[in-house]
């Protein structure tokens, strides 16, 4: 039985002190989550909110009163009465040094935005902390895999910082366990089982590893084809055109061209996930053999391009003729299971309003 006193304490909000400010938190939250909610800008590199916290990069460290060394905020649970400093001089200095080290181990820090959703994380932090000193220039870590010729995923491990986000997203979110970590330290290398190409591994080319990589070491090869295409990158929120799951995506375009797809982390159906089709099979719409003009079959028995008016009149006259000759039950409509609602709605209305029949169906029977 719960006594009145217990009931009171369970109801009472848990409190801690964040940079001198008293804030409430919920049981089970990490320091990072509490700080994030209260708009503290704690830098992270190995963190992806969809994954189990890992505590590897140490950028997110904070000082906690009563604990001698700074702790990683992403892996440390908040507790009642904690007194936390997120941004002391010492911590900021430590962060800068860490970033200088990380930056020095990579070939490039500035990677194209088209590389992936999280690809700018390292660059943004390096700029924020002015960490391009070159103080540590020397040993590089990771070696790019140039032998894997797959057309989707760039494996440029010269830019790898060993955050293991790719390995973790593949295991924790995808359940595919296609990639793993070999060796430690400067020799750390992300590989597939038997060091095969991705095609010969468990990889399904869902692209999740690409989208979570904070450095562009893993890059979206298809999108990167358009690195030099003129124009700003625009993002348009829409839904994937393939299966019935209905994943939310951001379509990336430059001018009139769709250049890539990124998953929407807040998409209700997918929560950031995608599969190969949604991630990489977007360019069909800009294929050269798209139909561009209406066509009608002329006396020679062939289809010829014509203008809209002629085609629409021809289509309408053909239906009227059949209806007049064979009656209103002689015309049938088949709507698409891929086109949007407005297509299906007008199709059924056209049949019902024009012929007074229910001679309409869609392709779900195939």
């Amino acid at each position, binding site marked *: 039985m719960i006594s009145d006193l217990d009931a009171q304490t369970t109801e009472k909000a848990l409190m801690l002190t964040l940079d001198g400010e008293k804030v409430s938190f919920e049981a089970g939250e990490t320091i990072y989550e509490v700080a994030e909610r209260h708009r503290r800008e704690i830098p992270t590199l190995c963190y992806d909110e969809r994954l189990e916290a890992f505590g590897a990069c140490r950028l997110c460290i904070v000082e906690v009163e009563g604990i001698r060394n700074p702790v990683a905020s992403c892996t440390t649970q908040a507790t009642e009465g904690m007194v936390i400093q997120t941004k002391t001089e010492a911590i900021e200095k430590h962060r800068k040094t860490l970033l200088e080290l990380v930056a020095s181990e990579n070939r490039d820090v500035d990677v194209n935005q088209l590389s992936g959703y999280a690809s700018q994380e390292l660059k943004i932090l390096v700029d924020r902390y002015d960490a391009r000193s070159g103080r540590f220039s020397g040993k590089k870590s990771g070696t790019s895999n140039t032998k894997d010729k797959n057309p989707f995923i760039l494996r440029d491990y010269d830019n790898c910082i060993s955050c293991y986000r790719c390995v973790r997203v593949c295991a924790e979110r995808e359940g595919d366990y296609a990639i793993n970590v070999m060796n430690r330290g400067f020799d750390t290398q992300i590989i597939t089982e038997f060091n095969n190409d991705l095609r010969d591994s468990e990889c399904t080319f869902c692209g999740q590893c690409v989208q979570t990589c904070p450095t562009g070491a893993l890059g979206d090869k298809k999108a990167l084809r358009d690195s030099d295409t003129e124009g700003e990158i625009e993002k348009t929120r829409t839904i994937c055109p393939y299966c019935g799951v209905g994943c939310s995506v951001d379509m990336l375009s430059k001018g009139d061209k769709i250049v890539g797809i990124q998953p929407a982390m807040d998409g209700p159906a997918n929560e950031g996930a995608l599969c190969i089709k949604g991630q990489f099979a977007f360019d069909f719409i800009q294929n050269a053999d798209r139909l561009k003009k209406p066509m009608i079959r002329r006396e020679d028995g062939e289809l010829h391009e014509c203008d809209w008016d002629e085609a629409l009149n021809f289509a309408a006259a053909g239906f009227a003729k059949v209806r007049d000759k064979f009656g209103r039950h002689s015309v049938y409509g088949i709507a698409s299971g891929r086109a949007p609602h407005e297509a299906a709605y007008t199709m059924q209305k056209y049949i019902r309003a024009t012929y007074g029949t229910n001679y309409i*169906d869609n392709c779900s029977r195939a």
Partner: protein
Amino acid sequence: MSNPLADMEKPDVIFAIGTNMTECHPVAATRLKRALTAGATMIVADPRQTRLAKMAHLHLPIRVGSDVALLLAMAHVIQREGLIDASFIEERTAGGNEFLQHVKEFTPEWASDICEVPAADIEKAGLLYGKGNPSAIYYTLGITEHICGVDNVQSLCNLALMTGNLGVEGGGINPMRGQNNIQGAGDCGAVPNNFPGFQPCDHPESTEKFSKLYQTEIDGTKGITKVTALDNCGKGIHAMLIDGENTVVTDPDKNHCEHALKSLDHLVVIDIFMTETAQLADVVFPATAWGETDGVQTNTERRVQRLRAAVPPVGEAKPDWWIVSEIAKRMGVPGFEYESARDVFNELCELSPIYAGLDWDRIEDSEYQWPVPDRDHPGTPRLHEKEFKNGRGKFTVVGYRDPAEVISDEFPLWLTTGRRLEAYHSRTQTGRSAGIEYLLSHESLEVHPDDAEALGLVHGGMAKMASARGEIEIEVKVTDMSPQGTVFTSFSFAEVPVNILTGSGYDPVTQTAELKVCPVRVEPA
């Protein structure tokens, strides 16, 4: 789906039947994988050793087309072991007694002969599903594309009803819709039996309502299905308007279908590519594609979501709704004066009760799952929570039937068809996306090593495969993915028109084609 996608991470016991989810709905499958990591138990009934089957705690490689027998026997076990939810049956359902009586006859031993899996495994499946709290069912076309598709679905409903697994978090019966907006096509009334919002065509109130709205007298009876319409081409049906569907490749019995469309006086096709179907048309209209079109689509969990145009249309392409409306206007039909997709969608919302609380602006953030009966309604992530649509959940007494055609000396192997991860339908889209061919460049036929040896087939060699309807050539892939006696391929490549072979029958109620089962003969080419 009765339940939201998010519920897929919550079942205690997962029963996946006739769904190759990791390939057809990979993103949904990731949720099941997470449920497994969290400790859920999974039963997979599928003839093939799919990736999902490999992850299962219990895999039942049932003979194609034997689902009803399996489900009856599972119900038998649940009944016998007293694993039923008596109060749910009493309070929320109808026909329970009769059904519980009916299943007494169908033992796992009986089903074992039909399904070709051990009775002990069927027993185990019944116990697992019956004890799960909650248990959830997932299925796709492997269940519906049969002559007994409706029996299959009803058998699944029976299981969920007898165990009270409906209207509960993490449970339910969850069909995964194959195409992005197939659910939406139904929502919009593009079916012969319902007006928009599933208002039945054979109910006088709805007929009257729509006759008035559409300013013409509409038949008070259901229309014929697409399958019947194709059968009647040239004999009653003389003109067709087909929007964005490559009927000739995706429908069963390709030769019949092509012949049917050729015998029309007038065929109008709207599409984004010159498909095999469009090539037969008298008029072809170029539609705007995904990425160029504003609109709405509904996903498999009934979530109504906005599609947005990001780039201008290619060439002179126009939205489907505009093309259809122009044809209507030129025939003097009133009510097609739309100026935007928004106008069309808002009209749909106005006259369908399940969308009554929605409009173009309210679906901006994808937050609603229908039914949304009014403006104050939050939407319905989970169906049947308090009551069923028609009051009580009805049990159906179903019996097992053999497929339309069964194997014989002439056609001794079962062919079953499906989809592949990298390809989508007739590949009008994936086939035109760069890089996909690196992973999947051509079609092949999966043959079990024992069958390959007996038939003299070699891996990578060509085979001739024939059914009662035709013959095709296809490359052989020797693998134990499919069980001995069953071969598998997909219908995505026009060069390998598998649907020349299939099409032996249709479900008598839905007229869904039996695409999943077809007896064939395979020999070296």
